[in-house]
């Protein structure tokens, strides 16, 4: 059975939130810094040569795509390294499941927390790019809920890897083979339609490209019918993969 208790999941989420609250100011400060550095380097550095891309100033083009990566990294770090350390080294999960919480609740709580961090990081990023004057539409207010969904998606994927990962040293593979290529080929730094057709097709299968398209559409107020397919893509992948980390983590910890 896959059943988790929403209250149990909320309790574990609450534990994570409690811990985060203490590092909140520092972590948010770092959070502000990162996009600023990216925008300065990419926007002003590269932007000096590339004046417009797809009819947008390069800074605007990069910023509106880059905001999606904050959401990806927030969830991914939470559900890879953080989750693994707690699960494997500190045995926090082993302790929690001796209470009314089941391993299902712990995994779901962790995924929800990953999504929460996506929203926090993504929103901070959004505020920064707004300060750079790249947000053009009130539709941008829909970005935090979008990041909750994309955070769930990236958390579920990362947690699936974490559940089967035999050793913490394998996480670099996850980043090198999955996260970084996605980062480079999701239409953040250059438009995908400029690539050979098969590459463009291939990028359709990467989760991040859909988040990028949606967040760019929302910040620029250029939402179209075709963006529904991006939303559906994310929903389908998230729902379809959702049972995986639960099953795999249960197989790992309680058998």
């Amino acid at each position, binding site marked *: 059975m896959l059943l988790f*208790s929403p*209250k*149990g999941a909320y*309790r*574990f989420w*609450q*534990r994570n939130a*409690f*811990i985060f609250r203490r590092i909140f100011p520092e972590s948010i400060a770092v959070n502000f810094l990162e996009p600023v550095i990216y925008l300065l380097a990419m926007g002003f550095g590269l932007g000096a040569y590339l004046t417009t891309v797809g009819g947008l100033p390069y800074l605007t083009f990069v910023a509106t795509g880059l905001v999606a990566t904050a959401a990806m990294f927030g969830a991914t770090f939470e559900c890879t390294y953080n989750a693994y350390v707690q699960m494997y080294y*500190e*045995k*926090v999960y*082993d*302790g*929690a*499941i*001796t*209470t*009314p*919480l*089941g391993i299902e609740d712990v995994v779901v709580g962790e995924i929800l927390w990953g999504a929460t961090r996506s929203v926090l990081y993504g929103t901070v990023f959004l505020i920064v790019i707004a300060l750079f004057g790249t947000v053009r539409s009130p539709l941008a207010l829909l970005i935090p809920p979008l990041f909750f969904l994309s955070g769930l998606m990236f958390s579920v994927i990362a947690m699936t890897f974490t559940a089967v990962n035999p050793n913490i040293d394998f996480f670099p593979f996850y980043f090198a083979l999955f996260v970084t290529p996605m980062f480079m080929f999701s239409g953040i730094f250059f438009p995908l339609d400029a690539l050979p057709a098969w590459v463009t097709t291939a990028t359709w299968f990467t989760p991040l490209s859909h988040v990028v398209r949606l967040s760019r559409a929302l910040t620029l107020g250029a939402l179209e019918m075709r963006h529904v397919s991006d939303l559906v893509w994310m929903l389908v992948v998230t729902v379809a993969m959702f049972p995986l980390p639960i099953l795999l983590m249960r197989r790992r910890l*309680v*058998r």
Partner: protein
Amino acid sequence: MDLSRRVVNAHGLVKRYGTLVAVDGISFAVRPGECFGFLGPNGAGKTTTMKMIYCVLPPTDGQLSVLGMDVRAQGRAIKARLGVVTQDNTLDTALSVRENLVIFARYFDLPWQVARRRADALLEFVALADRAKDKVEQLSGGMRRRLMVARALLPEPDLLLLDEPTTGLDPQARQLTWEKLRQLKRTGVTQILTTQYMEEAAALCDRIVIMDQGRIVAEGAPADLVRQHVGRDVVELRGFESLDEAPARVLGAVGDLADSHEVLSDQIILYTQDGEGLLRRISERGLVAEAATLRRATLEDVFLKLTGRSLRD
């Protein structure tokens, strides 16, 4: 005894991993208010049995009910009434000592205010009140173990499960933990513990089972087990010039004064009801051993006799 009043009731309990049989069809019952111990060498199946009782591992076969509920169907409801000290410490190093208790209490759905009140009372109980704000890393091994005990007591459990509560602790820390556990027993909390320390089982448990290779090989009160399986006294003879013929001569001399015996590489061990009489007999017959020790039989003798002397790691 009335079945419904048993705190734990196991019948034909089995846990298999592929072809490996960790627990091989054991049956036992734990009564309200008692301290029940699982004793056994490494790999005997003690921890696996404990994990099945605290509803983290599903049994492969057999019946297991805890607090009158079936572990397969009502795990969450059972766990809400248990206190568990796992074999490895599972403290949250991201949290302070007191926060460990408060956050854990929230898993049991206790309101914040109750959680904080119980946390403070329990820190007092396990003598950690002055360390409340410390990080877990700053605690000694004994303190961490006591914090685990305090954490297990947060839900005011009907049953406390302790998997090797004092392994790795120094004698002072062990004595303090024992004292706390005895104190709890007086308040009527049923306890189940596993241990590799015979003194611990003898000091805390009303009844024990000795496990070996997934099976229960003996069951009873510690003193009864010693009487049944070993007798009253143990005589150890060391330092014979040659062990080739000494055993035969010694055994011939003591006759039926010894209930049983063991011959090891460097000594002969005799189990008897009358150690002094046996020693006298040996010296009367002119048998000389460099060292002869007479001591009371302990649970360790039972343990070694039943589970053998070979290493299990």
